[in-house]
């Protein structure tokens, strides 16, 4: 009963300082699981295209011939499916959010992974085989 139910909380809050933080001067709260943005490592990607298949938003494009891996940050919903699916650990989820942009640009990377020499097999065969293995996994 009463009209001063809030007073205790108000007094405590007055003493306790602000509950918010001065972002961006103080960085936003994040934790180890926070899904911020995808980081791609071109030196280990083997162009298996599993990430392309898994992405629910068609945010990733891969050109195997040209060795180009692209991500459209405006489409990406940071679900983390591609990270889970990449068998070679080329994708990681960073905790910081991608900064806002004023222009729609697709981020483009040139894959620098070089296949170790294996003289017995032809490169073309190898790439198809890898894809098959990935699918059944």
């Amino acid at each position, binding site marked *: 009963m009463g009209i001063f139910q*809030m007073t205790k909380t108000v007094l405590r809050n007055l003493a306790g300082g602000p509950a918010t933080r001065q972002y961006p001067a103080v960085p936003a*709260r994040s934790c180890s*699981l926070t899904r911020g943005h995808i980081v791609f490592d071109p030196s280990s990607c083997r162009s298996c295209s599993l990430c392309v298949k898994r992405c629910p938003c068609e945010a990733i494009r891969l050109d195997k011939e040209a060795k180009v891996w692209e991500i459209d940050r405006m489409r990406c919903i940071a679900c983390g499916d591609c990270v*889970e699916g990449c068998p070679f650990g080329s994708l990681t989820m960073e905790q910081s959010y991608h900064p806002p942009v004023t222009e729609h640009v697709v981020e483009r990377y040139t894959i620098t992974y070089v296949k170790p020499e294996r003289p017995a097999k032809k490169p073309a065969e190898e790439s198809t085989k890898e894809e098959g293995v990935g699918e059944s996994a």
Partner: protein
Amino acid sequence: MPERIIVPFGPQHPVLPEPIHIDLVLEDENVVDAIPSIGYIHRGLEQLVQKREYTEYVYVAERICGICSFIHALCYCQGVEHIMKIEVPDRARYLRTIWSEYSRIHSHLLWLGLFADGMGFENLFMRSWQLRESVLDVLEDTTGGRVIQGSCKVGGVRRDIGQEKLDEIHRSLDLFDQQCRGLGDVFLNDDTVKYRLKGLGVISKDEAYDLGAAGPTARGSGVAMDHRETGYAAYGDLGFKPVVETTGDCYARCAVRVKEVYASIDLIRRAIEEMPEGPIDVKVKGTPDGEYFSRAEQPRGEVIHYLKGDGSKHLARARIRTPTLANIPPLVKMLPGIQLADVPIVVLSIDPCIGCMER
């Protein structure tokens, strides 16, 4: 007889976070009739089910609503799992329950804040949202997303919560419970709030039932209907009793939500204590063929996902009924007889989520 005039309420109105339009027919200051119209933010998400694979549609289902996102995903996954006859592991069921209840608390605290803001009680609004922040922090710590958790998938959940984290959550619940009770005390016992809410927007038990009210709107009128009673996810193991008030006014609907926050805290506590060990997902093979009405209890009431699969990897049809749609007819019934100045509070009292309703 005084002259009748029509005052448009919405689609843009300070108390409305989302667009709904109501034509209020007034005699002087008194509302005699209300004519709602909806359809401002239809996004066509149901159609999208034919373009996205059934496993991918979870992400879309989750984005139907920004507040009950987890429960939408859960409801969708349950539907697909039922069609495909997938048995979800126990631990996944418990984790789903914990996240559902956290979503419920965060939704109710958000609503309580908005409601306090609608009453003009700014302090209370800030306090509610301050508490809500700690819930969002837990959600982020355990799933990686504050609002869109992305943790439910067909066949289970995508992330586990470690025992250490569970213990930490369990410990933090005591303080949180105490804080929520402090907040609830203001909503339930403060005279300012009581004067503003009691006897406002009354809807009787029979009317609420006949008009198909859902969730706290129905329970505030004494209709003890809560889908959690049917025991989906882990509610069957945990035991659950719906929170019911009988007066059917705005105060009752507010009280139901306040007490549901307490109930949810209790459910989370018990779910953590009884959390079974084991896997968190099962491998999903094949495609859904068949149809199912999947139901789950959202903070606003019961949500229904009707899913129909034809054996391809895309579902043939999805139809979603959200609780806000069910609560519009009771709202129209509540409005006549009240004063124009009370309309915002009464509209807010059903917790309208228009984004959800129009998909």
